[in-house]
């Protein structure tokens, strides 16, 4: 079906997309909660900032990441000091790009669900002796599950499809940053490789569909008590 090298690309894409989304999950939820519930000056600004990677051309996001993470950039220096290495041209860099691009989608979906949570249920929980943190864990969070699932699917799909920011930030390095989209792009530039392009594209679709089906099942199970599905 796929060649060994192509399986390698699939595995790399899954690793990059998976790590990106897992790391971003708590960050995205915290941001979504803050935006849904918080009242603070600069909220609109934070909202805008979170949306930035969505609205900026991906190549610009990639370029900004490049400036930030270059050995002389502010974040690049920190990483160098901490790990002695760099994320440029590395799969870690590709995961950063994918995570940043996925973030706004994750936040929006989660925020939508948090805003839909009935706050009277939270009041009820507090009269039952639950502090803010327990209310959050046992009421707000579980009732936001539909948004968390939707956000995760959107984010994972976006991470899998990420192209412009990745190629600008960490280039197209086989085995390190050459995810499915970059591999397909490379093949599109080599005449007579339609079969490979097709195989890789189908693989993208299969992975995405699998993620989708899994998420639907998850949402169904989590939502059992809430919706008639």
């Amino acid at each position: 079906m796929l060649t060994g090298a192509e399986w390698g690309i699939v595995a790399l894409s899954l690793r990059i997309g998976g790590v990106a989304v897992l790391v971003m999950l708590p960050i995205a939820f915290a941001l979504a909660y803050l935006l849904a519930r918080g009242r603070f000056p600069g909220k609109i600004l934070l909202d805008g900032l979170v949306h930035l990677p969505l609205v900026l051309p991906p190549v610009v996001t990639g370029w900004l990441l490049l400036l930030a993470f270059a050995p002389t950039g502010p974040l690049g220096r920190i990483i160098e000091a901490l790990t002695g290495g760099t994320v440029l041209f590395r799969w870690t860099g590709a995961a950063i790009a994918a995570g940043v691009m996925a973030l706004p989608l994750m936040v929006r979906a989660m925020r939508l669900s948090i805003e839909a949570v009935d706050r009277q249920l939270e009041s009820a929980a507090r009269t039952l002796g639950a502090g803010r943190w327990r209310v959050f864990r046992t009421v707000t969070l579980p009732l936001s599950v539909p948004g968390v699932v939707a956000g995760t699917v959107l984010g994972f799909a976006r991470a899998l499809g990420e192209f412009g920011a990745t190629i600008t930030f960490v280039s197209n390095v086989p085995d390190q940053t050459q995810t499915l989209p970059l591999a397909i792009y490379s093949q599109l530039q080599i005449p007579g490789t339609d079969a490979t392009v097709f195989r890789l594209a189908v693989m993208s679709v299969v992975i995405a569909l699998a993620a989708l089906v899994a998420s639907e099942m998850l949402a169904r199970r989590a939502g059992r008590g809430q919706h008639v599905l």
Partner: protein
Amino acid sequence: MFFDVDVEARVGAHDIACRFQAEDGLTVLFGPSGAGKTSTLNMIAGLLKPRRGHIRVGGRVLFDHGEGINLPPEARRVGYVFQEPRLFPHKRVRANLLYGAPDRDADPDPQLMEVLGIGPLLDRWPRTLSGGEARRVAIGRALLSDPAFLLLDEPLSSLDRARREEIMAVIERLRDAIGLPILMVTHDAAEAERLATRTIEV
């Protein structure tokens, strides 16, 4: 003096003021629809912040505008049965009942389940309950949370006579045997007459 309440609040365009003192026993809050009964209970529970005044219950200061005291709801040890059931839709009946219980792994007290008639419902989801079943679960949830006092907002509406009798008996027992102070809203004259130690008009 168990309840010592003197509060004022503004909800929407309405000014609500309520002032009363009450000993232990059961105090019925009484008044026409829209008078501010639920708002008053919400202030005592800590869900609505009064504009001024104070709330003292059983010697504890729950709220005092002058002294800047405002205990959060979870610290007030209130057992609140809301006007509508407000069950957690994502938890089964059992988990709803035990949400505020000191021991969340124990089974809910079988005797109480018997009185409320909800023993067979423990594994059901709230959305599958009938109106009266949901209300009974809400009563059970408040009683199981080990409260220092009860706030009951028309707890017996939508229950049939037999069940109402039994639950009234439970409330009487709480009132007399355990000595739990109770503040209750009801429109039912018979109910008020039977249970009330005193009645306060809002």
